[in-house]
């Protein structure tokens, strides 16, 4: 009999995390949801268990409590085959410019916490000789812009970290996937006016993650192809001009 594969979704209360967990469960995977809010995670876990007739458990984790990470990994019932980290914090750019503690929160939630946690799993995976890591980063990290560079620079750091991890572990057969979703209709963007063609639904992101991580083995995925083009253009603008633009 084939052993059931398992996936850990870090950020199991987010809309993207929920959709990803459901998609894995529907594909027959055992799902572990990590989150800091137990009730909210349980609400998603119960829903997924019913919809997919699957096995879903909840595990408490605050991505800012980095000292507890080792104990957290040890406490899991299994070392998962795949870890998907969707934790993030958009924050408020204007506030982050003047309030250092807010800027710190954004930087640590998007970069430090996710990078250290995935780094730790990378060590365990390397020891085991298998495993897949997926980090949900952002196109905001492709080039710093006035409107969200605190969040963007943290995502840039995360993207670079994942890139390095991939470079180091590819020979060992450990897969590392970077996802840049573009705009997604979630709690994070509720109330914003989003351009229709550039905006994905959470389950579209989920399908892209599974396709990249488990089926096609892609390294870096923009959920909607059009974002690759948009970002290529944005990154191609000379700094001399870019610094005067408001985009």
């Amino acid at each position, binding site marked *: 009999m084939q052993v059931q594969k398992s996936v850990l979704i870090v950020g199991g209360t987010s809309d993207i995390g929920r959709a990803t967990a459901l998609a894995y469960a529907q594909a027959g995977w055992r799902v572990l949801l990590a989150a800091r809010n137990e009730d909210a995670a349980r609400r998603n876990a*119960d829903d997924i268990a*019913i919809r997919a007739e699957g096995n879903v458990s909840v595990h408490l984790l605050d991505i800012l409590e980095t000292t507890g990470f080792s104990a957290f990994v040890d406490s899991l019932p299994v070392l998962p085959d795949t870890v998907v980290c969707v934790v993030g914090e958009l924050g408020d750019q204007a506030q982050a410019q003047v309030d250092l503690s807010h800027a710190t929160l954004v930087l640590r939630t998007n970069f430090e916490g996710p990078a250290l946690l995935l780094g730790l799993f990378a060590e365990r995976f390397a020891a085991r000789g298998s495993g897949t890591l997926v980090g949900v980063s952002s196109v905001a990290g492709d080039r710093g812009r006035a409107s969200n560079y605190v969040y963007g620079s943290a995502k840039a750091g995360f993207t670079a970290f994942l890139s390095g991890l991939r470079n180091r572990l590819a020979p060992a057969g450990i897969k590392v996937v970077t996802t840049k979703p573009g705009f997604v209709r979630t*709690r994070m963007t509720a109330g914003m006016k989003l351009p229709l063609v550039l905006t994905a639904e959470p389950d579209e992101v989920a399908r892209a993650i599974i396709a990249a991580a488990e089926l096609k083995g892609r390294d870096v995925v923009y959920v909607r192809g059009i974002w690759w083009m948009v970002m290529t253009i944005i990154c191609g603008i000379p700094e001399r001009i870019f610094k005067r633009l408001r985009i």
Partner: protein
Amino acid sequence: MTELSGWGRYPRHETELISAGTPAAIPSLLAERTGLIARGRGRAYGDAAIGDQTTLGSCQLNRMRSFDPVSGRLTVEAGVQLADILAVFVPRGFFPPVVPGTKFVTVGGMIAADVHGKNHHRVGGFGNHVEEMTLALPSGETVVCSRSRNTELFEATVGGMGLTGVIVEATFCLRPIETGWMRQHTVVAGNLDEAISALSASASASYSVAWIDCLALGPSLGRSLIYAAEHASVRHVESLRPGAELFPSSRRGRVSVPIDLPPFALGRVSVSAFNELYFRAGVITSGYPFLVPWDPYFFPLDGIGDWNRIYGRRGFVQYQCVIPISAARSTLGEILERITRVGTGSFLAVLKQLGPSSGLLSFPREGYTLALDLPVSRDVLQLLNELDEIVVAAGGRLYLAKDARQSPETFMAGYPHLARFQDLRRALGADGHLVSKLSARLNI
């Protein structure tokens, strides 16, 4: 502020639109505001799901809470969509006890309108099958109600159009099915009398509905096709469709109506040709039971996305009345005739048999219900006012989930438990607090 309308796109109103992210967030949202009403998928045709000041979106309350595969008992948050329930449970051999003519509705909306299916004469409305629900009251309190707990609140909330509180969670039982196929039997009725006789003769069928060609005139007024159906057994599928999948999946590849068609697109000629074709296709299959997948049988219009746009920007109204059995033949005949005489071409005319009522403001009562869509115009609105008088005189009433225009007097005449409902609203502190454009218009 956001402009909202119902499925008929008439009327349109400005409202503040907010959304409840979690069940726990509802009490404080309710306490902070007045003139508020809950909204599901906005499939009510008129102004029922538009808040007088604020509209509370419930689509994020979309988690399933528990399911027992032995009894079929399902508990879900009120914003869970019927389409999701079907997608999850039909392949496992379960079907909801009652479904309306579209699957793009929420459980909250199905309870608040006490929706009826093609099986109302057999099993009653959806509210009849709700065992228990959690309700957030205007006071900020959250209570559980059922037929044995907070009974009056339960009876008022079933069919209560969101005016007693916000439904947060509900429990009901799915029924077992052997396959996802329907064994359908078509009967042709040459006129309204025959249609009513055929419906009453097929009252032992689990599901039945008559589609009326409302452009047939004179002696063939009310000419219709009666579709009676049962959930097919494995044996039926094996003999009628050997090799077929037992649970055909929900239809994909929806065609959408991308733009608003001009009003003349539905003129007499095109609708009449459509109806003629529809009728002929039915006649050919008449008499032989045959198998149809559940999706097109129950939700024939869901295959065409956004079909409400074909009536153009001005929108349309659906006129749905129920007439007590004794008066049904003559009254429905008169209504049909008045509508065919104007010839505005109703795209849809559906006749169903209804059983006894349940909630205080539930629409269904024993009798026959007729529903037709009409494009909005001054003439149509005038005609409907005249039809209201016929309905009231026959002891009938109009469906609030379809209404956009009836008068408070017509409403009052049809709903004998209104005073009790209003007393309960006062006791709950709901009057003035939970207000939709519909309740303001009808002084509920």
